[in-house]
């Protein structure tokens, strides 16, 4: 059943991603991106990374994608305008796709050891929070005479510094984006004729 679920989710995700790449209408591409991101969130949930899956939906779908769609609407010039890509771009895309695809297949073909995958969910929100803070739940790991390097006594790495750095980073980005996107007094110029020449 897990395999069936994975096949369904992978179809949605990859199908959506291919549609994003190939659809020339930007708004439709945004909708296929929505399905792709929801598919990826489903795969996170399938893998047991529950918090990451919920964050993916909350941040990516509910935040980033809405931002992208707003951007599309604010910069639209004609209803459903489409821009054609040049034939050299399409050739480059095919070549690059072939290269990346062959690298991926070559690396993954021998197969990877599946390891001891545990059942159920990965460590949940509480454990993630403790990891971010660098504390451990003392009641679960009482002081015992375990040898050094045993899993239970390993000091948990704290991700507090990256967490704080990212918080400041988000603040900086917020201020920068608000400043860069501030309303201007002059209206945008008409699209120049040079854009339609052959490159």
């Amino acid at each position: 059943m897990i395999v069936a679920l994975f096949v369904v989710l992978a179809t949605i995700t990859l199908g959506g991603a291919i549609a994003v790449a190939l659809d020339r209408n930007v708004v439709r591409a945004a909708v296929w991106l929505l399905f792709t991101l929801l598919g990826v969130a489903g795969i996170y949930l399938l893998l047991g990374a529950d918090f990451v899956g919920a964050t993916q939906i909350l941040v990516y779908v509910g935040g980033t994608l809405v931002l992208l769609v707003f951007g599309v609407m604010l910069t639209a010039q004609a209803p459903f305008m489409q821009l054609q890509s040049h034939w050299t771009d399409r050739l480059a895309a095919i070549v690059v796709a072939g290269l990346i695809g062959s690298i991926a297949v070559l690396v993954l073909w021998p197969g990877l050891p599946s390891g001891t995958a545990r059942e159920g969910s990965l460590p949940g929100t509480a454990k993630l929070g403790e990891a971010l803070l660098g504390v451990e739940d003392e009641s679960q790991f009482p002081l015992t005479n375990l040898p050094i390097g045993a899993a239970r006594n390993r000091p948990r790495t704290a991700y507090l510094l990256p967490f704080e750095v990212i918080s400041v980073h988000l603040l900086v980005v917020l201020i920068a984006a608000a400043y860069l996107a501030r309303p201007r007094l002059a209206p945008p110029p008409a699209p120049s004729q040079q854009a339609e020449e052959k490159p």
Partner: protein
Amino acid sequence: MAQAEASPRLSREHAVTGLTENLTSLGVPADWAGLLAALTAAVLLVTFVAVSALFFIWLERKVAGRIQDRLGPTRVGPFGMLQTLADGIKLLSKEDLVPAAADPILFRIAPYIAFCGSFVAYVALPFARDWVAMPLSVTLGVMLVLAILSTEVFGVLLAGYSSGSKRSLYGGMREAAQMIAYEIPLGLSVLVPVLIAGTMDLNAIAGRQKGTIVSWQVFHDPFAFVAFGVFFICGLAACKRAPFDLAEAESELVGGFHTEYSGLRWSFFFMAEYATMFLIAALAVLLFLGGWHTGVLWFDLSESLGFFGNVLNAGVLILKAWLLVFVMMWIRWSLPRLRIDQVMTTCLHYLLPIACVLLLGAAVWRIGAPRWLADGTPFVLAGLTVAGVVWFLYCVVATRGTLPTAFDPASFTQKPTTGDGA
């Protein structure tokens, strides 16, 4: 904080796992049993949402009628209860209209995205202690509900854009701006009961409120009391209900983002709206108002009565949620609509700082409140609230049958002025 989050009770029977076990014991292979159980849960939830929507539409029209001093639907069925069914049949038989300027694929997808954006969250909603569709609520709970609520914006945005008409686009963009702006104070105000309970698991949060009314989290400290208000207001905005219903502002934008929709597609938007209303109400009940506990009994019914106890608990939860939905409708038909700049000002200038202060205050209260304060506040708050509700009901009953003085012609002392100011 660690002691509140004990090891997750994975041995608890969730609806899907419980059903799966029942089916496997009947001889169905394990994988198919899981799929069948999930389908059953989904069908039950869809049925519940659809029947709720039917009931809400009738309730809305009755409430609207009574507030506007008229009767509402009375002819179709007893008390007009079958009016919604008649409306549904009418909607089904309407012409399937897609405007020529509309994007054909997006126009058709948008209602379903809007509906899924609120319906999928029901998966994580516990209706009773043992009745929750998916075990995800152990690690995720509230977060999953909030995450899925945030995807409803997309349905609105797409509907507005793909209709190919200016009014729809404006309605859609204003509505999307409102919904994403109000997600922030919504999330912050949800964090207050999560902070008090120490877990995001909705089942655990509701289970914590076992007992009489003083154990309800809304009375736990004054910050939670205000957080309930903030949550309710933000929930109103998330449902696009008045006074935040610019998207459907009939007097301004015809229909806003759903102007070009008719028939069954339009009804999907309204099912989505009522589904979100019930979701917000149920979330408020679970987080603040004691969940499925009655508030007068000091024990949990499901512990003593098993399956029947679960039925009673689910009934209590649904009744409380319906009461909150009634309050939402009451607010809609009493208050005027806010302008878009007023909507955004309310969110960013008022509710967001208030929510931040509430979060800080709740954290400080949990760490540093002296014992007598922490124990006494629920009684004070609960007592004040009960007294307020009793006084309000007394006022309603005492003034029954009388007009408000503003509408009593005998109370007019000024002569009405003529049009040209003479």
